């Protein structure tokens, strides 16, 4: 055992000197492994950085919320204000904000704009999105209860209808009805998930007013804000239960989407894409392995005399085999380690460019290193075996 260790240690230094003495050839040989590992590391690190960034922005947008969209049954097409109040009363629910969408022509004086997206919201929406209003006031609960004709407009509408005028306190027409402008929306007011889903609205009005304009009393889209610490699965189940009652247990009347389920799907897709890409990149590793095998076979032929000599000096076949195996292992590891470093540098640059977080994935590094070690051993096996089986007589005759 000790004797083997002594010999193996010596094999490492002999292999290193062999690799060093043929720098150019060794470099070209490890290039395949290097490229393969670089690609695998860069892909995994970049994708995991990207998905980290993605899920943190998901978290920011919609952690602790559920989105419900109602298709309705023949008897009941949506939820009434009382239904919403019933949902709000659930333990798991902190609040509900309906979204009533419509598109309409807006005008002021001689200026007009058609097909403007308008969204009805409640006061609670502004309570939760306190950065939504850049100037003026939000929609109040009284606006909601008495369906007042007030609106908040975004910068586009300000520019088109209120050129040179302070819009707050002014009137404008939505679908021919006069509305009082009470506030200006912040540019990034659309960061909430319901806005992402329905497209950012240019004008916000009380949802009760929007319902009236739609000639309906039913809300078909709303966002549920969960109580702090509430589990989104459990809450989803409770809401489903409550809504089943509202819809008299008819099937397929509504769908509840949680952010985490969307995020899960997204992550599944990302990891699928990344493993697919890594799979493609690992083809480079196999090609690299074949390169190493080819080089090792050449080396064995070149060193026929050396092998014969070593056998004459008392080397046992497995000692010859392990020596060549160590050499191909080292070659492959050199390529692999260089690939890890290069891959990390590359993914660092990529993450900077894409603006996502750069996180060193130990899993990816381990994968790259162990993969290259495996490639070295697997593809070095046949040449090493060939070397160990060389007949010493034939090997010596070559000298």
């Amino acid at each position, binding site marked *: 055992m000790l004797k083997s260790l*002594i010999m193996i240690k010596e094999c490492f230094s002999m292999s290193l000197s*062999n690799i060093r003495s043929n720098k150019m050839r060794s470099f070209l040989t490890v290039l395949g492994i290097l490229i393969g590992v670089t690609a695998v590391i860069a892909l995994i690190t970049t994708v995991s950085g990207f998905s980290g960034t993605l899920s943190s922005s998901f978290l920011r947008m919609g952690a602790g919320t559920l989105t419900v969209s109602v298709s309705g049954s023949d008897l009941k097409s949506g939820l009434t204000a009382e239904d919403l109040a019933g949902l709000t009363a659930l333990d798991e629910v902190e609040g509900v904000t309906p979204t009533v969408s419509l598109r309409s022509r807006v005008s002021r004086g001689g200026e007009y704009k058609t097909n403007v997206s308008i969204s009805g919201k409640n006061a609670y929406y502004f309570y939760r999105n306190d950065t939504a209003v850049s100037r003026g006031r939000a929609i109040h609960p009284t606006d909601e209860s008495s369906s007042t004709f007030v609106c908040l407009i975004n910068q586009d509408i300000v520019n088109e209808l209120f050129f040179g005028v302070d819009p707050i306190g002014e009137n404008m027409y939505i679908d021919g009805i006069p509305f009082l402008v009470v506030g200006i929306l912040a540019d990034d007011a659309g960061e909430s998930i319901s806005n992402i889903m329905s497209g950012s609205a240019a004008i916000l009005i009380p949802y009760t007013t929007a319902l009236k304009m739609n000639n309906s009393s039913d809300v078909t889209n709303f966002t549920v804000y969960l109580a702090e610490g509430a589990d989104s699965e459990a809450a989803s189940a409770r809401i489903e239960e409550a809504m089943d009652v509202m819809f008299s247990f008819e099937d397929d009347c509504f769908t509840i989407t949680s952010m985490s389920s969307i995020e899960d799907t997204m992550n599944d897709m990302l990891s699928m894409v990344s493993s697919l890409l890594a799979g493609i990149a690992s083809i480079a590793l196999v090609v690299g392995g074949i390169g190493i095998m080819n080089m090792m076979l050449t080396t064995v032929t070149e060193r026929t005399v050396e092998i014969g000599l070593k056998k004459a000096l*008392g080397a*046992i076949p497995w000692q010859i085999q392990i020596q060549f195996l160590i050499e191909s292992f080292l070659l492959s590891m050199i390529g692999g380690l260089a690939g890890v470093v290069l891959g990390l540098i590359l993914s660092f640059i990529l993450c900077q460019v894409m603006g996502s977080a750069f996180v060193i994935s130990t899993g990816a590094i381990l994968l790259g290193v162990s993969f290259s070690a495996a490639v070295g051993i697997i593809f070095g096996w046949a040449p090493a075996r060939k070397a160990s089986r060389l007949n010493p007589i034939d090997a010596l005759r070559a000298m």
Partner: protein
Amino acid sequence: MSDAEFFRMTDVNKFYPMGEEQAHILKNVNLRIEAGEYLSVLGPSGSGKSTLMNIIGCLDTATSGKYVLEGQEIEELTEVELAQIRSGKIGFIFQNSQLLPRLTAQKNVEMPLIYAGVPPRERKRRAGEMLERVGLSDRIHHYPNQLSGGQQQRVAIARALVGNPSILLADEPTGALDQKTGRQVMALFQELNREGRTIVMITHDMNIAACARRVVHIIDGELTEGGEAKDA
């Protein structure tokens, strides 16, 4: 002839496949050597002398016949056991010294000890001693291409001796050397033999063969006793 027998070959035949036919390389060779002998096998190229040396050195086995080395029957051994015999009992010296070019003289000499699993410190000491023995203590860290032909051959001799083998097997040890250096190497051989080392040397050069105490001739695979050579 009362000394201890070192090895004995009885009716050894060796065939090599040559295309369709079997070439008969060694024909009923009988050879017996005692410990401490200095024998040279003299023969022209193609006479089978290298094959004979390979069989003596346990690099090859006979097709038929019996070869007993220090009481051990060689035919029955596995490849690994043959390697162990080479490692423990036999020191090879080749025509072109056959040093590994990327290793220093010292590392070259250490090589057999590496495969025998000798720890580094002891390896270093023994290699140093052997290089001193062949008069190269000032060339320990030189690489083969920094050494003259004679020096290289002396490194090879040190390498053959470092494992303290029972027999030194030399194949044309002076083949690549000029006359003067060749004579120096021969002088070293005689010295080693006087110290009790068994030596078998293969050569085609009658003058070199004459340095040994006993000469056998090999022609076309047949061995004939050449009688006692002069004790040089």
